[in-house]
């Protein structure tokens, strides 16, 4: 039984204090161990049923009863019980008022104080008495009249007035309005309030609950001679006090139930939806004075425990999923029959047999299960478990039915709200997905964002887009899970595979027995499936609809992306063809230049009408020889470039020390030019998996270019260092004049650049670029305000075998996109 009991903090020096007060009348214990403090100016109501010990307590305070144990301290002095001595600091009005029926009003006022009035004339006595009565609100008082002429209220007021004559600091009132009507009670209460307001400390015994709450600063409740509670009337309810007085729950009291229901309705209106179920349940527990309650909700053909009060985890677990029907115990039976199922003795009922041990552990002896019905039929069952083996009364069952109505209403409200929320979420998610797929972000990123939105919209554990490329191998294109795009569970892939085999695009597949849904979708270049998994049960109709919508959005996006990609590829191909044409044109030029020399000199020597001198002949012949050599180099480079360009460059990789590769390259530079060359590999340089000879060729080209195309004396440095992400960076830098922007722009484009005739074919840099690309790295020119800086970035290990294949493609792409290729 829960009761709100608030104990205000007592002031430091109480006007009245009882400690361990125990009073026995023979074998009867009237009071036992009463501890009570009353502060100055306080109005304390003593409540309790008849025989609870209220009057005995007052008599102790008044000093009329000798306690068996404990003491009472009044105004700082212990109360010494004595019938003879009258305490002037305490005014007491007993229930019987102690008025002398045969004396006048004035005489009654003077009763016990005869000495004071002794020498006064009757007139004076009566005048004084009238004034006194007027002061205490007794009007029209002919004080000479016999008290019998007074109304009950007037007599009560008279008694109070008499008690207050000496202006005591403590006034004790024993049921001052017990015998009065409502109007008269109000008069007396007015007086009490006035005295209280004026600072009188009042100990009031009352049976009137309203009065206690109207007048009292504090209510102390006595039951069977014990002080069972001190109640703050501002915070407690009437029924709390009633229940404390009787020691019985007051839930059967109609008033209490009404108050409770009223409060519940208020709180439900303002409560968070999610807490309404537990709110109703706990209020019902209080209303029935039942400690164990549970609500099961129908979910398909099972009943799931949605909320429970006072049900321990063990029972709750075994109670979580119940079948509808007798197999589900009383709960299942109530759900199946739509009728309340009352088990009077749970210890013997077969319905409880499977869970008997848990019930016994809980001290449960009987149960009631009442079905909840909504507009769509059965919603669930509310069950109460009681510690006594008894069937509920008619009222109690009605009460449960009433609360069941509340529960059904709350559930219906919850369901409707949930439906609206889910619909909104579906719309919101679809909007997010579309936004992500059509927004400015790169496609793959948009795809990932869309899947994340879908995952949160579906409240799924994982969501993945699985692509089948026709080889029978499915792979995850993009996924969203709790840890981002971490590898998805194999169940997801399996579900996708199964869906791809069994269903048509757009056909939703719910996996039997598991929280997985999959839907195949049409995608360019193969089939795809969108698949989602849940830790709990998968969502209902809205979830499925959302997945279907998302699948069609993704399908459209994939198609659009494929089209865009095709357009891009076409453009790249066109550009590539243009570059190839330009390259061939330049190649023609490069081949023609040495040929011009060879043919020109040869034809000169063959001129029939000219006889050349010996020097000229030798010069012509040596030119023919050198131009032939140049032509030979050109053809070699061309073959090499075509190998790279067609992607058939074969590397012989091994673990290479780049420092050694650089040294070897430097050794190939003619000595007369190598004077200003520095090679500086870092000490912590990791070995790289690469083709030593090919890399040497790359560095020879870069070093030779740097030395050859700069004024003599230009210093050239090659440094190598470990870069980020498992890369090694070799930098070839010179302090010569910077490269002209137009030259730099066309550096990796054949056909745009023309080298000096002595500079070889001009293909060297392209070949170097191709070799680096074949290693999975990139070669780039970094723009510098002064000098030139080439970077060769190589992975320590190749990422993937795939990376080697498009090396030639990369070379052309580098050609096709000058200035962007190879940029990090």
């Amino acid at each position, binding site marked *: 039984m829960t009761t709100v009991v608030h104990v205000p903090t007592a002031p430091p020096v109480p006007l009245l204090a009882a400690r361990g007060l125990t009073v026995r009348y023979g074998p009867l214990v009237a009071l036992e161990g009463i501890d009570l403090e009353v502060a100055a100016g306080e109005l304390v109501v003593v409540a309790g049923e008849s025989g609870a010990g209220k009057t005995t307590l007052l008599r102790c305070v008044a000093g009329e009863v000798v306690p068996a144990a404990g003491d009472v301290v009044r105004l700082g002095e212990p109360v010494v019980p004595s019938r003879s001595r009258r305490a002037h600091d305490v005014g007491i009005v007993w229930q019987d008022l102690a008025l002398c029926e045969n004396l006048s009003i004035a005489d009654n006022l003077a009763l016990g104080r005869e000495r004071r009035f002794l020498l006064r004339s009757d007139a004076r006595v009566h005048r004084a008495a009238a004034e006194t009565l007027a002061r205490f609100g007794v009007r029209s008082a002919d004080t000479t009249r016999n008290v019998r002429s007074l109304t009950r209220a007037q007599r009560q007021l008279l008694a109070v007035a008499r008690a207050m004559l000496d202006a005591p600091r403590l006034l004790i009132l024993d049921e001052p309005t017990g015998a009065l009507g409502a109007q008269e009670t109000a008069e007396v209460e007015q007086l009490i309030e006035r005295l209280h307001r004026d600072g009188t400390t009042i100990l009031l015994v009352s049976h009137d609950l309203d009065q206690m709450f109207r007048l009292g600063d504090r209510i102390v409740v006595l039951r069977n001679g014990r002080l069972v509670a001190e109640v703050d009337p501002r915070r407690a309810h009437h029924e709390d006090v009633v229940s404390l007085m009787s020691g019985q729950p007051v839930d059967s009291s109609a008033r209490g139930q009404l108050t409770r229901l009223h409060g519940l309705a208020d709180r439900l209106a303002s409560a968070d939806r999610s807490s309404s179920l537990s709110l109703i349940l706990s209020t019902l527990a209080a209303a029935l004075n039942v400690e164990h309650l549970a609500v099961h909700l129908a979910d398909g053909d099972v009943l799931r425990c949605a909320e429970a009060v006072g049900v321990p985890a063990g029972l709750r677990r075994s109670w979580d999923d119940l079948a509808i029907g007798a197999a589900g115990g009383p709960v299942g039976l109530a759900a199946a029959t739509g009728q309340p199922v009352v088990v009077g003795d749970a210890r013997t009922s077969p319905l409880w047999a499977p869970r008997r041990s848990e019930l016994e552990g809980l001290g449960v002896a009987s149960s009631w299960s009442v079905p909840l019905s909504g507009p769509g039929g059965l919603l669930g069952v509310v069950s109460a478990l009681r510690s006594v083996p008894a069937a509920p009364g008619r009222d109690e069952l009605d009460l449960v039915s009433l609360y069941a109505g509340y529960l059904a209403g709350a559930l219906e409200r919850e369901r409707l709200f949930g439906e609206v929320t889910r619909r909104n979420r579906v719309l919101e998610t679809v909007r997010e997905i579309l936004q992500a797929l059509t927004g400015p972000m790169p496609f793959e990123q948009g795809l990932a964002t869309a899947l994340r939105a879908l995952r949160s919209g579906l409240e799924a554990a994982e969501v993945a887009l699985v692509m089948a490329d026709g080889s029978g191998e499915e792979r995850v294109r993009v996924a969203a899970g709790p840890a981002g795009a971490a590898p998805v569970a194999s169940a997801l892939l399996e579900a996708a595979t199964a869906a791809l085999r069994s269903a048509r695009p757009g056909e939703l597949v719910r996996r039997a027995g598991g929280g997985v849904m999959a839907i195949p979708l049409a995608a360019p270049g193969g089939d795809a499936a969108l698949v989602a998994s849940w830790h709990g049960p998968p969502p209902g109709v809205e979830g499925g609809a959302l997945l279907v919508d998302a699948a069609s959005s993704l399908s459209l996006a994939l198609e659009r992306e494929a089209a865009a990609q095709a357009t891009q590829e076409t453009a790249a191909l066109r550009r590539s063809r243009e570059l190839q044409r330009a390259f061939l044109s330049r190649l023609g030029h490069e081949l023609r*230049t040495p040929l*011009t020399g060879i*043919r020109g*000199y040869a034809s*000169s020597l063959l001129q029939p009408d*000219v006889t050349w001198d010996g020097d*000229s002949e030798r010069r012509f012949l040596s*030119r023919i020889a050198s131009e032939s050599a140049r032509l030979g180099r050109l053809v070699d480079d061309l073959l090499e470039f075509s190998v790279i360009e067609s992607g058939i460059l074969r590397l012989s990789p091994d673990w290479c020390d780049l420092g050694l590769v650089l040294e070897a390259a430097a050794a190939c530079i003619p000595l007369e030019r190598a004077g200003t060359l520095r090679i500086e590999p870092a000490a912590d340089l990791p070995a790289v998996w690469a083709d030593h000879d090919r890399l040497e060729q790359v560095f020879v080209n870069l070093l030779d270019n740097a030395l050859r195309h700069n004024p003599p004396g230009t210093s050239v440095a090659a440094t190598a260092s470990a870069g980020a992400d498992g890369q090694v960076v070799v930098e070839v830098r010179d302090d010569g004049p910077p490269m002209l922007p137009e030259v730099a722009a066309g550096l990796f484009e054949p056909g745009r650049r023309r080298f000096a005739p002595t500079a070889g074919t001009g293909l060297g840099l392209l070949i170097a670029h191709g070799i680096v690309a074949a290693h999975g790295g990139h070669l780039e020119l970094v723009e510098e305000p002064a000098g030139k800086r080439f970077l060769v970035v190589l992975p320590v290990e190749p990422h993937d075998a795939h990376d080697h294949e498009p090396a030639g493609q990369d070379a052309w792409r580098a050609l096709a996109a000058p200035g962007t290729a190879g940029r990090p």
Partner: protein
Amino acid sequence: MSAASALDGVVTRALIVEDDPNIVDLIRANLAVRGFDAVVSSDGTRALQLLEVEQPDIVLLDLMLPEADGLELCREIRERSSVGIIVVSARGGERDKVTALNMGADDYLTKPFSIEELLARIMATLRRSRTPTPPAQLAPVVRAGDVVIDLASQQVTRAGEPVHLTPTEFALLRELASQRGKLLTHAHLLRRVWGHGYETETEYVRVYVRRLRVKLETPGAAPLILTQPRAGYRFVPE
């Protein structure tokens, strides 16, 4: 061939605009041995200076220069002088050839070339600018509209204003005007104006006819040179 330089008893001077030292050496050696004088430049500004100072009889112009646009240089030379220009280029496409002719070149030689070919073209170009007027069997002065062509003095006026023609342009015009009204084939014109071996270079005629039209014809008015598609041209009859 050494007779060429002795044609008028003066030394023929060639301006070689080329950046490849091997080619320069090759051409210069062959011209020198035939009594030609040669001046060389590998850049455009210097070439224009030499054109002014040295007054060459012929220009051998490489289009691929490291720091100049060969075609632009060709146009500038033609603006300043009616000297014979032979473009020597590694680019052998039709388009390249037509562009060079449009820019005022008289001839176009593709690398690699034999020395005989180069010398033959040099001679042909020089001949056009030096060959004395052949005896005029017909009217030495041809009038068509407001254009007056004096075949003897090689003077052309249009509405009384003198029109400046290059030797190649005048050679073509003379060929057409002297056989007025008669259809002259491309091959005939090429052989007569450029020489033997040029019969298939149809573009040459087309480019030069177009140049003549620009200089002599009035847009919208009746043409001076009539086109006979796929055959040739004829000068407007009297």
